[in-house]
């Protein structure tokens, strides 16, 4: 081995991971030191087994490892599926002019993915605050489902354990019978919010809605998408709406860029499909997709099969003469149970009531 002492290299690796946003506890560093001593020839794996505990962090680990420790990182084939094919033409977000489709590998760095974080955090503080206060009174109650856990009840199926306990009081004769029933639990709500350029006027309001309506609900998930999908559940999970929105805005996504709804919904299915099973999926988007509508049609069909109900909120629907002619919207509509507007607070309240009744 060359370079500095092994211990300092390990500490540097942990520090590098923390700097890259991977949470690493001191206990894990100590564990890694022991692991590295046990398998000195496999430093890469010793570090990965102890410092990384999410599949999503593995590419970050690979990068940090290469930067700090150079060679020694085995070439690992990644099988996490990234959809490389981009059908349809992405639009330049500023001019609205179609640009040439970038090669798949360059998609992450292409200029069409406009990473505009600042505009969202800075804009309209006053209105935001007023809206947030109004929305704080809202609650989004998801419909209930029965779980496999049981609780005592006045009827239902026999509860043998408690019946036996009671039987001892009556000389072993089960006179006083106990019952139990399945517990009820609210379904998970999955919000999928379009933050692309065409939705920029609504995105903040919708995110506030997401934050306010779901605060206090234990089972919910929120995703934002433009040309790719980002999970923002943890970022929105903050009591202050200001702070929650600021954190969501720092998410690595292309705020106010182009839209690839089909790809994004498909990513949602492939990466987080299990979340959708039996849940209420709420998509907030204008349905202006620059991708192939067939992708969206198929993806929404799959969502509809997995989810309990699918709700689509389209702010364009506020116009009385709106018809869902946009190719994306028309493709998605057959798989949508509730189609509503959601362009202002009033309509959102009506939707919240409709969801509770599903």
């Amino acid at each position, binding site marked *: 081995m060359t370079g500095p002492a092994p211990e300092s290299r390990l500490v540097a690796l942990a520090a590098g991971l923390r700097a890259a946003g991977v949470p690493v506890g001191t206990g894990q560093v100590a564990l890694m030191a022991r692991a590295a001593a046990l398998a000195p020839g496999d430093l890469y794996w010793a570090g990965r087994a102890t410092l990384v*505990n999410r599949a999503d962090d593995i590419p970050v680990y690979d990068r940090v490892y290469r930067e700090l420790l150079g060679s020694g990182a085995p070439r690992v084939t990644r099988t996490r599926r990234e959809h490389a094919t981009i059908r349809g033409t992405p639009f330049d977000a500023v001019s609205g002019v179609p640009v040439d489709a970038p090669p798949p590998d360059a998609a992450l760095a292409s200029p069409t993915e406009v990473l505009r974080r600042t505009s969202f955090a800075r804009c309209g503080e006053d209105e935001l605050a007023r809206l947030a206060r109004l929305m704080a009174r809202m609650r989004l109650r998801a419909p209930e489902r029965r779980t496999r856990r049981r609780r005592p009840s006045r009827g239902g199926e026999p509860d043998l354990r408690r019946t036996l306990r009671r039987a001892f009081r009556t000389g072993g004769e089960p006179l006083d019978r106990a019952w139990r029933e399945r517990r009820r639990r609210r379904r998970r709500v999955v919000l999928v919010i379009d933050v692309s350029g065409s939705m920029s006027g609504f995105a903040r309001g919708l995110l506030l809605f997401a934050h306010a309506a779901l605060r206090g609900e234990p089972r919910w998930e929120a995703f934002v998408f433009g040309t790719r999908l980002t999970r923002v559940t943890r970022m929105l999970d903050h009591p202050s709406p200001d702070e929650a929105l600021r954190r969501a805005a720092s998410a690595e996504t292309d705020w106010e860029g182009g839209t690839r709804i089909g790809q994004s919904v498909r990513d949602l299915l492939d990466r987080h499909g299990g979340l959708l099973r039996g849940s209420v999926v709420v998509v907030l988007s204008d349905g202006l997709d620059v991708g192939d509508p067939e992708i969206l049609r198929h993806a929404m069909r799959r969502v509809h099969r997995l989810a309990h109900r699918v709700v689509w909120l389209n702010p364009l629907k506020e116009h009385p003469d709106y018809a869902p002619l946009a190719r994306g919207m028309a493709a998605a509509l057959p798989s949508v149970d509730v189609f509503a507007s959601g362009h202002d607070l009033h309509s959102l309240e009506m939707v919240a009531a409709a969801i509770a009744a599903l």
Partner: protein
Amino acid sequence: MVRRVEFATPDALETALAERSYLADRGLAVTAFLALKLGRPLLLEGEPGVGKTELARTLAAAMGLRLIRLQCYEGIDAGQALYEWDYARQLLHARALQDGAAAGGAGELYGPEFLVERPLLAAVRAGDRALLLIDELDRSDDEFEAFLLEVLADFQVTIPEIGTIAAERPPVVVITSNRTRELHDALKRRCLFHWIDYPDVARETEIVRLRAPGVSEALAASVARAVALLRDADLIKPPGPAESVDWARAVDALGFASLELEVAEATLGALVKNPDDVHAARRALARDLARE
């Protein structure tokens, strides 16, 4: 009693697994080795069919341990995982006591003979003679995970009527998850984590050869290559190595020594299980096999 087999190096572990027809990649061998040495649970994630559960089975066999499996599902609770009383027998016994047909006091109603042992209690009792497989933990709910964390922390179980049962030396623990939800950080921090990737074509060929010994080398290779192609074909449920083995067996059972378009299509059901995928797979295979 069979002595527990220990491994001196990751290579020894890899060899022992290979002797039992499980081909582990380097990362898996090192991580499993470290988990054993450090006495930590091994947390395995990966796409379905990459051999997460199979590793636990094979490791248990290689180490001479009893495999105790706890299959998680939505709504699983402590009673189903730890222990339960045999109520029907208790009630009968109580009646027998009352009629004078049985001797003894009421205290015996909660004796060990009425205790129904579930996997976690079995694992605590067996201690280091067992390998505890907690399968598909992501399917259980949060409360159960918190409960499990407690058990994994000290491997002791308190039954109010009997007392505390503790494992002298903890069992080997393997946890698998399909990532339908994130597990808690507290649990993950206790574990050594490994993401099992799909094998490359060469390794998959070996896997097919090992698991389906009757299949010819050429057929195994072409199956592995076709499966690798289909994994890139953007299927909803890409096939895992388990499906490759099934597919190779199916083609072989029809008496074919190589993968031809006709037989590939006829046996596709062994490989691809989603109707949308069947069409996509058929197209991809037709393109590929027609080129040859």
